[in-house]
């Protein structure tokens, strides 16, 4: 490549030697351009380069022909090469070679010049050409170096300006941000914080620059905040976010929404941490207050139902099924009486005082007492330290009320009933646990209150059955599951069926036929006894009327039990009158049986109602006489017709050979005698043997009732007995 093309060029040049001088010039330029082209980086094609070299070739030739010989223009031609972007040193070397080999050949010097002189001129021309090239290359190199240095300075200045502007923007952002920003190194040394952050803490910016992140711990820090901090500075995480409290300079707490980010360098190596925090103290306090309100009882300040269930759920959700839980369900005894007699305000103050005493019974952070509502409280013990802990707490609750509570200068004695239950989280569900404790509580209540009942699965099962019956009662009445049976009342004198007592039965779909002992008390408690009682009354009256139509003169009267609630029901008189009217039964055919308890504490109004009923002609019997207080004053105040002597006095007289319990017999005799003195008739219940019937007849009881005569049965049994006549039970005695 570095060699000048041989032969053909020389031959062709030689051939054109005799032609035009310009032809030689063109040939030289062609060779020159071809030789240097590989070393140029011009924008010219080779043909263009050749055209470019043509005038330069002419000038070279002109120098050789100049008189006097002036070599200086050769320098300009060397310069022109560099200006044409032919800067490679090879261009100089190749150009000198081409000049040396071909210039004299294609432009022979004047004949007058000796060949040695011509070679000398050519050499000097080459020296000048080379000097010009070198000068120009040096100038150009320096100029380009200058240019690129300027360019880099300009670029640097621009970058710095941009950086400065960017830093100024960043600084403004940092200074003016509404959130607190702090930057620290990986050791936690705080490098800078902004005004907002300093204000948040109530300090000055400079004070932070000597402090360390580790100094900012707070007892209420979330459990993982410092763990995540360590992960961050180790480069294991890029950010974390928490609600975190800090102590301000005056010792109060500022709550922040904190985000900490790790800043890495270009290689990913952790460099700094940036903390950004927003002051959420007010929001936090508001949230806390709302939460407190939502989970606490405003009256007593105790946790409320919601808090209790939340803690209970937490204990159940702790994942550890062996977690033991203790529950005390507490209910004040007789609180309603306080409320009713002293007013709600006193009741409320009593509750506050009781709550304080209960709170004083707590001994550990695992214990919680909450108010469920009304006078009901509950205590939860999570993971009791020892088996005795829960029972101990319950006993402290009981003892806490030993001393009376002073309200308005009055000393109030109040007691509490407690249902206690301990179990593991695995053994039952939260709702079951509460229900079980509640049921256990009612056992304590039923046993008289002011006591502790410990959960007993069997007792609870019974209670649940009872509860099941209670809830079923209304539907049972609606769906006609009740029916009546009748037991005859027999005249002891002549054995006639004088009357029939209506007895209610419940045909329970699952449990079969249930007697009144299973459900009447429940109906009393729920109030359902009132509609049930009227239903019974109406059915019985209708039946009595049916007997009258069927049997005419021998029809029995009908005895119907009146419950306590019914007896006190203001609509009693009207309802009874309406039923008699509807069933077309005359009042004298109806006897209402009431118990002594219906009279105890009864208002005058209720006694008036009973008097109105007897005024209408209805008979009144005092049931179960002799078992209660047997307060004879009632006999004075209400127009009772009949005393029914309780079966318990009769059962003692059951052995045909033995004379029986002489005291029972004397009591009965006394009662009969008393009744007769007051002009009352006597009915004895529970007569099961002929002997008993004999004795009662001997005591001159008017009527008797019992299995000896007939068990309760359907109405047609009564019809049959009445039709059969009177002689079947009295035969022996009368004969």
């Amino acid at each position: 490549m570095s060699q000048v093309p041989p032969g053909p060029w020389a031959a062709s040049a030689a051939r054109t030697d005799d032609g035009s001088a310009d032809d030689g010039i063109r040939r030289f330029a062609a060779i020159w351009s071809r030789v240097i082209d590989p070393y140029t980086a011009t924008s010219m094609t080779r043909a263009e380069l050749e055209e470019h070299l043509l005038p330069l070739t002419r000038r070279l030739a002109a120098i050789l022909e100049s008189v006097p010989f002036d070599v200086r223009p050769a320098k300009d031609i060397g310069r022109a090469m560099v200006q044409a972007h032919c800067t490679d040193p090879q261009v100089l070397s190749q150009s000198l070679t081409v000049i040396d080999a071909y210039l004299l050949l294609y432009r022979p010097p004047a004949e007058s010049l000796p060949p040695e002189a011509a070679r000398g001129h050519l050499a000097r021309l080459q020296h000048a050409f080379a000097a010009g090239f070198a000068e120009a290359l040096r100038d150009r190199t320096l100029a380009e170096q200058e240019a690129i240095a300027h360019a880099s300075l300009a670029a640097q200045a621009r970058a710095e300006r941009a950086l400065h502007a960017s830093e100024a923007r960043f600084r403004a952002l940092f200074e003016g941000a509404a959130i607190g920003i702090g930057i620290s190194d990986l050791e936690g040394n705080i490098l800078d914080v902004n005004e907002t952050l300093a204000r948040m803490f109530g300090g000055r910016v400079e004070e932070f620059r000597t402090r360390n992140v580790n100094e900012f711990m707070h007892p209420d820090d979330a459990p993982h905040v410092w763990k995540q901090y360590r992960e961050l500075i180790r480069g294991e995480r890029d950010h974390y976010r928490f609600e975190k409290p800090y102590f301000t300079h005056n010792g109060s707490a500022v709550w922040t929404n904190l985000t900490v980010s790790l800043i890495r360098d270009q290689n990913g190596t952790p460099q700094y941490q940036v903390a950004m925090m927003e002051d959420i103290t007010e929001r936090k306090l508001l949230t806390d207050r709302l939460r407190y309100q939502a989970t606490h009882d405003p009256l007593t300040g105790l946790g409320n139902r919601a808090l209790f269930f939340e803690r209970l759920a937490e204990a159940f959700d702790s994942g550890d099924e062996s977690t033991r839980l203790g529950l005390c369900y507490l209910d004040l005894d007789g609180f309603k009486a306080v409320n009713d007699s002293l007013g709600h305000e006193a009741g409320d103050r009593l509750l506050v005082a009781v709550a304080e005493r209960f709170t004083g019974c707590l001994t550990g952070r695992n214990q919680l007492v909450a108010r469920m509502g009304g006078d009901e409280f509950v205590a939860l013990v999570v993971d009791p330290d020892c088996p005795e802990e829960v029972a101990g707490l319950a006993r402290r609750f009981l003892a806490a009320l030993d001393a009376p509570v002073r309200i308005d200068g009055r000393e109030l004695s109040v007691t509490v009933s407690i249902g206690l239950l301990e179990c593991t989280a695995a053994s039952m569900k939260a709702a079951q646990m509460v229900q079980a404790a509640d049921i256990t509580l009612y056992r304590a209540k039923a046993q008289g209150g002011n006591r502790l009942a410990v959960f007993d699965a069997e007792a609870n099962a019974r209670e649940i059955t009872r509860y099941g019956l209670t809830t079923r009662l209304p539907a049972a009445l609606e769906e006609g599951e009740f029916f009546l049976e009748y037991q005859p009342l027999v005249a002891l004198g002549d054995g006639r069926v004088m009357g029939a007592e209506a007895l209610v039965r419940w045909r329970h779909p699952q449990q079969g036929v249930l007697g009144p002992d299973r459900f009447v008390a429940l109906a009393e408690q729920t109030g359902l006894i009132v509609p049930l009682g009227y239903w019974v009354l109406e059915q019985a009256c209708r039946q009595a009327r049916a007997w009258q139509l069927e049997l005419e003169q021998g029809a029995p009267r009908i005895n119907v039990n009146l419950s306590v609630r019914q007896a006190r029901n203001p609509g009693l008189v009207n309802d009874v009158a309406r039923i008699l009217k509807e069933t077309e039964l005359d009042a004298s055919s109806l006897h209402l049986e009431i118990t002594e308890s219906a009279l105890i504490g009864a208002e005058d109004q209720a006694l008036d109602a009973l008097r109105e009923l007897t005024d209408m002609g209805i008979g009144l019997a005092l049931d179960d006489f002799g078992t209660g207080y047997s307060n004879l004053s009632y006999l004075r105040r209400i127009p009772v017709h009949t005393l029914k002597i309780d079966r318990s006095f009769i059962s003692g007289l059951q052995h045909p050979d033995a004379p029986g319990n002489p005291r029972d017999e004397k009591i009965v005799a006394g009662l009969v005698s008393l009744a007769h003195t007051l002009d009352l008739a006597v009915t004895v219940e529970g007569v099961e043997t002929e002997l008993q019937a004999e004795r009662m007849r001997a005591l001159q009881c008017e009527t008797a009732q019992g299995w000896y005569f007939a068990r309760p049965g359907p109405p047609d049994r009564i019809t049959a007995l009445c039709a059969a006549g009177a002689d079947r039970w009295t035969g022996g005695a009368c004969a």
Partner: protein
Amino acid sequence: MERPVWAPHGIDLTRPSVARMYDYYLGGSHNFEVDRAAARTALEVWPDLPMIMRANRAFMRRAVRFAVDSGIKQFLDIGSGIPTFGNVHEVARAAAPDARVVYVDHDPVAIAHSEAIVADDDQTSVLQADLLKPDDIIGSEAVQRLIDGGEPVALMLVALLHFVGDQDSPRDIVARLRDALPPGSCLILTHATNEGYADPADEERDVYKRMGSPLIMRTRQEVLSFFDGFEVVDPGVVFYSQWRPDAADEEDPARYSGYAGFGLKR
């Protein structure tokens, strides 16, 4: 970590620059010792580099003229580097005095130098932008001002895409630029390859890789795929010296280790 957008690109003159090394290969002095040292290292393993650069340069000259002959007088030269002698605006202006050129590069020094060169030239402007954000280029003030959106444009991606790895989706970038061009525009493209020639380029690639500008060799098919949506004119995507040469070249064309092509958007 991603650079935040507000942080300007810094100037680090202790690192070699691709643009200044290119200038050195072409015989220029717009370079520093750090550039020359890197270039010399590359030359040791690949002494043909200056020749390759000149061939690339020669193709560019031929292609610009071809574009002017095709009626295109607007040039968008992305990756223009240091515009030394034989630059696009000189070549184009020689053929069409009213030709307009926008030079785009991301090297701040190259940009500063280009600005100095074209300071008094209202038909040429310089834009610092990144090929990876083609919308920044299309939407730039320089392009909007100088390029007539109704007239065809020559998009020049000369010796540039071999610095863009596939993870940066160079085809999508070219497609985005193509879609912004009016019909009748063209794509002038060259790209390094190691096809058809013993590969001396591993070490060469290492040199660029150490500079943070890894060199990606692509096959002819891969290079052709950049012309998606263009009609590649004869003789197609070929080695530099094979594309419409002015004069016979005895050199093995594969020795230039680069493909060149010219595509027209219909």
